[in-house]
């Protein structure tokens, strides 16, 4: 589990899916990221990240309800799999390890 194939953007999407829990589908994930992180997300980039992570097994998905505003098309809800959770945790562990390894003096800017 040391080498986790998870990019920065993928990590953000994955975390956002976890945040939204039961309400994570395309539009809501996009909005959540845009609101929380104040960055623009293109539909293309996000969709590709979702599909790629689904293929890798970090996410699974189910179809949800259709609404009129969606032109009668169903939503696809995403959920983080246990494997996805482990990947996220390991990324975080790696980060923490690195943070802890930084000598205090390194960040003492005067």
């Amino acid at each position, binding site marked *: 589990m040391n080498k986790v194939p998870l990019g920065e953007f993928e990590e953000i999407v994955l975390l956002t899916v976890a945040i939204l829990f039961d309400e994570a*589908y*395309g*539009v809501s994930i*996009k909005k959540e990221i845009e609101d929380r992180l104040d960055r623009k997300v*293109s*539909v*293309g*980039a996000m*969709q*590709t990240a979702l*599909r*790629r992570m689904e293929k890798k097994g970090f996410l699974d998905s189910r*179809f949800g309800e*259709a*609404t*009129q*505003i*969606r*032109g009668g*098309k*169903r*939503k*696809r809800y995403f959920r983080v799999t246990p494997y996805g959770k482990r990947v996220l945790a390991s990324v975080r562990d790696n980060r923490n390890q690195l943070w802890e390894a930084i000598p205090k003096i390194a960040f003492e800017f005067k």
Partner: protein
Amino acid sequence: MISPKPNWSFRFLRWFCHPDYVEDVEGDLEEIFQEKKDRMSLHKARWLLFFDVITLFRPEMIAKPHFTPASNRIAMLQNYLLTTFRSLRKSKLYTSVNTIGLAIGITAFMTIVIYISQELSYDRFFKDHERIYRATLKSYKNGELSDQNASNWIPLGSVAKTSLAEVEHSTRFFKSNIVLSKYVKFILEGENEIPINSEKLMGTDSSFFKVFSFHFIKGNPDDFIASNSLVLPASKADELFGLEWRNAVPGSSKDPIGKSIAVRPSSDIAENFTIVGIIDDIPENSHLIAEGIYHSSVFETPMHLVWGAAGAEFYTYIKVYPNTNLTTFQFKLNDLGKQYKQLTDQGYIQDFTLQPLADIYLDSNLRRELKPPGNRVVVYALFVVACLVLLLAWLNYINLTTVQSMERFKEVGLRKVIGARKIELIQQFLVSAFIVNAFSATISILLLIVALPFFNQYLGTNLELTIYQFGVPNTQLFWLLILVIYLLGAFISGIYPALALSSFNPVRALKGKLIPRMNWMGLSLRNGIMVFQFAISILLVAGTLTVLRQTNYMQSQSLGFDKEKMVVIENTFSNDTTFLDKMEYFKDQLAQQSFFTHVALSSSYPGQHTMSWHHAKVGTEDFKLFTLILVDHDFFDCYDIQLTAGRFFSKEFPSDRQNVIINEAGIQALGYASAEEAIQTKIKDQVHQRNVREIVGVAANHHHSSLHEEVEPIVYLLTDAEFYYNNTGSDQKASFNYNKEFITIKISQEKELSEAITTLQDTWKKSFANGDLHFFFLDDRYNQQYQSEVLFGKVFGMFSSLAILIASLGLIGFIAYSVRQRTKDIGIRKVLGASVANLWLTLSKDYIKLILIACVVALPIAYFLIQHWIDGFAYRTKLFWWLFAAPGVMVLVIALLSVSAQAIRAALANPVDSLRNE
């Protein structure tokens, strides 16, 4: 409210998107769209949606293409590609020879096409160029053509416009060096000044821009009315005003329009010009050259309607109405000339032959051409050479592929057994032809990009490759041509091998019994191709040798004068009243350094076209055209022109101002029996018949013009000679205006030219009040007349070498295979005792035979063409037999060298190696 969504975006999405994803993605997009369109315009929302769809167009989202398994076309194509690449890789020699040969062929062809298209494009950018004609002046004397002039009498343009209904506009202009000294300055008072060459300063009438459609960057062609209005090309405006004029607001201080420009040294034409317009620079591919165009007052004086009032120095262009019948118009125009007595005096007929504007550069080579003319024959000859080179490259491919594919006969056999139809095999070989040709085309484009600057430098041309600027016609033409060559080449070079190879009998092929040799027809075709290649190579080499020899001959001919170590200074001070004093000082200074052996003043130098007057013996009316050269007492010594009879001008005879020296050609023209007979007889000139002069000496002929022409009759007068300019009335005499235009200095033998020039420059500045020195070397300038032959020789030489290179590449490839196929043969011969020399002969004799056949085919053709070309010169080199033997021998040697390398290697190989494997 639900708004209609943009269908095309979704249709695109559905088309490419993976079907598993399409539903929810589409839903998401719709949701976003519906939300956005409340916040912004519907239009904008639609566009944003479209961009979102575009961002989705990436590999992860795209459905994998699936083909129906029923069709195996793609699979077969893949297989063809695979086998092609495999066999290309396997035989590297063949591949590289083939590709390089083709690439060189295409590059050579394209280079020439670029060159030719530039030559053919002259003056075609003028609007309505097909309706614009130049009226040239052809004089017939007693039914015999006596003179052809690019320019015309001053009234013609105006008279034609007023008397002939066909003329829409006409214009006349002259080169200002006839009224100004050659080097003048445009001075923008208090700001800037630039040098102008008055040969490139055109004095026109007011309708110039009605005939020639120049694009005005500033100003308006309609304002070209007042005398001394001036129009500048953009580059000159840049020099004069800096770059800011382009953005200047009309009327502001930076605006060049309306500014006044002074000319210095000033002259009788104008003190000041007023700028009324700035035009685009005249492109390279125009026969007009102008650094400035002004409306000359000459065309507003009564003189502009008097025939013969000024020399025939006026270039006359006529724009006719559409649908004018040219034959009738030409007839009417010539008729016009017959009404004027001045033109028909003394049995003259003067025709105003019309030349279409776009043909002037290539087809016209008259006196007083504006630009050194091109040569249509050369252009077409080069095109033929280019086609031959390309053809050679294609033939190479055919030959090599046919031979090389013998190696693939097992593959072909197997394919046939498995069920390949003939058409499929043909496809397969065509595919490989298309691939190799694609490589070559790509390489040749790269080669072109790399090689064109060198080509330009070597030939002194100015060719441009326009392959990036899409939308420009040249660019489109370039790519179209490349595409055509590619497709045509691939097809031509691929179809024969494809047909030949697909006709194997599979059973024999697989048994290995197929002796890898083509049928009788194939064999003869192959040899035919080789003979053809050799023949073309021989032809081109013979051509190159002749052109080189003729140029060499012309440059090394005894010209009747000395041109080594001669410096000619263009005298910019000839109007200076104290010129002769300054000249004395100048000579003195140089003499102190024993700088020169002679210094002479004259109105012309060899290689320069100068004025010509008609002269006849006194008492006869048989006028002949003579070149008129004004010289000082040192001229003949300086140029080392020999004396045939009488004496040269001498300071002991002050009356020499009225006397004349003529050359031997002149003696002949006037009909004297000998030079001695002519001495002390008198001649007169035609326009002013009171000018009677006594011949005091006869000079030997010298080639004042190039060797393209016969030696012309020449009349020499002293620089201070005077003449009556009225036939009746006052007895006033005038001296010649431009009598000391050139100072020729014969530099001492012991002086190095490089240091001599520095001395010369310093002394000139000291003597002539810091004036600029304009000089050239006589031999350089004289040889420039052969520029087009030198260029032709270089291009011809270059492309013949390429042709030979391609042919020998082909030969090398060809021999490599035939030697490989004969390894057993060679092995057995060796075991039986054949020597290396024997084997070499066995392998080479076929090729020697082919080359001899090629010689027989090529040499008569070469002789015919060369004879034809060389007839165009007045002085031509002899066509020695070796001129024709040498190319044959040369091609033979090159071919044998390529054969020998392979043959000797095969002959030296241990026969055991080749015989062991059965």
